[in-house]
């Protein structure tokens, strides 16, 4: 039950895009049509779902204050949390690179549709943001962090596909010239964000 609540919350209430503005750069750049948005969205879900639990393990057993206790009592005081940014980003970058290589070699058809987005993802803030939120909120277990990762990823996916659909329609409308393109997109995202705010405070 707790998992379901966390899952729903991370999709709608704590939506990566509308509540935290994370992953905005690629969100705005790759939302011109639904097909590419779909590809990037799926790639984000996948990478987030895989890297966040890895980072959770690292955070719990290596980085946080007292995490090295399992090595012996003399390590109980060690606090490596100042290394967390660098470790998290290294895990993400390395993971993305490995996945890219594997997909390219064994699943060429998937690579053709997803591959070009993978390098973009290493610098997608929502991935690192997910790991940082995981650290800040102290998830208690691997399951919890995996559920959170999946939910946030789906939330991001939902947001980008919605925006892409709106932008496809938007290209037929008569927008003032200076507002065309990115200007109106910003305002659209703002309005979508307001709509998403109705989910705030949902209790499950």
């Amino acid at each position, binding site marked *: 039950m707790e998992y379901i609540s966390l899952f729903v919350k991370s999709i709608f209430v704590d939506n990566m895009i509308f509540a935290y503005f994370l992953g905005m750069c690629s969100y705005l750049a790759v939302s011109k049509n639904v097909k590419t948005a779909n590809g990037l969205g799926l790639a984000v879900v996948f990478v987030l779902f895989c890297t966040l639990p890895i980072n959770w393990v690292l955070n719990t057993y290596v980085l946080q204050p007292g995490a090295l206790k399992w090595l012996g009592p003399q390590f109980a005081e060690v606090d490596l949390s100042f290394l967390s940014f660098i470790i998290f980003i290294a895990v993400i970058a390395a993971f993305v690179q490995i996945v890219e290589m594997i997909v390219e070699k064994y699943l060429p058809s998937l690579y053709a549709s997803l591959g070009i987005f993978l390098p973009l993802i290493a610098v997608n803030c929502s991935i690192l943001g997910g790991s940082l939120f995981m650290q800040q909120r102290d998830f208690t277990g691997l399951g919890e962090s995996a559920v959170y990762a999946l939910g946030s990823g789906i939330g991001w996916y939902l947001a980008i596909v919605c925006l892409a659909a709106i932008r496809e329609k938007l290209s037929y409308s008569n927008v003032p010239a200076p507002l065309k393109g990115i200007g109106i997109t910003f305002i659209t995202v703002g309005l979508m964000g307001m709509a998403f705010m109705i989910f*705030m405070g949902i209790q499950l």
Partner: protein
Amino acid sequence: MNTNSNAYTVIYTALVVVVVAAVLAFTAMKLKPSQDANAKAETLRQMMSAAQIKPTDELYATRNAGVLQLYADNIDRAYTIGLDGQENGTLSTDLKKIELIDKLKPQNKAIKDGGEATLPVYVFKSGISVIPVYGAGLWGPIWGYIAFQPDGRTIAGAYFDHESETPGLGAKIKDEAWFREKFAGKQVAFGSEPLFNLAKNAEQSGAANAVDAITGATMTSKGLGEALNVWFKAYEKHFSANFKAEEE
């Protein structure tokens, strides 16, 4: 030189990692004492603001050393209690090595799950005792310090802080002086339920343990109300046992 050979790549990456780790470890070690001092002084400021030692603005204008001095001058004794309400440790109040329980998260977990807790009580020379509270707001943790009059149930003052509540809404628990001032003079209803009532229009009831929630910040207020009740409950045994004598 061929910068694309495998050996070069591996050695280069290893070198970068070693250099970066060394630089980071060095700065982290060098800066750790002043970071800890900042965190400690921050806790003391919040505590003394609640205990009405000095106005909040003045405390925040005081530098770290002054804050430590002020605390050492005003504190009577500090100790910790367990979940059974019995004293289980003392905290040093000596200026040179002030001890605080400022990691509230593990304590909160101990209260909820049962387990070994060390809940701090800071007794000032004025007779006011300060206890912390901790809980979850809308976006992240919220915490605060509640100061009790010598009778152990009338609130003398409060201070709240948060990590990432919405500025202008939930963040008002920290930013608005009128909100924390509302707590002064209220009484925690030890021995009955609920211990404290923080809700919309709660003050209309006229009860001594009721404070109105902040309009528009439903989730933060709810979290704060829960935090207050959970922590008051944990201190209930200790307070009703140790402060009874002073009641009429």
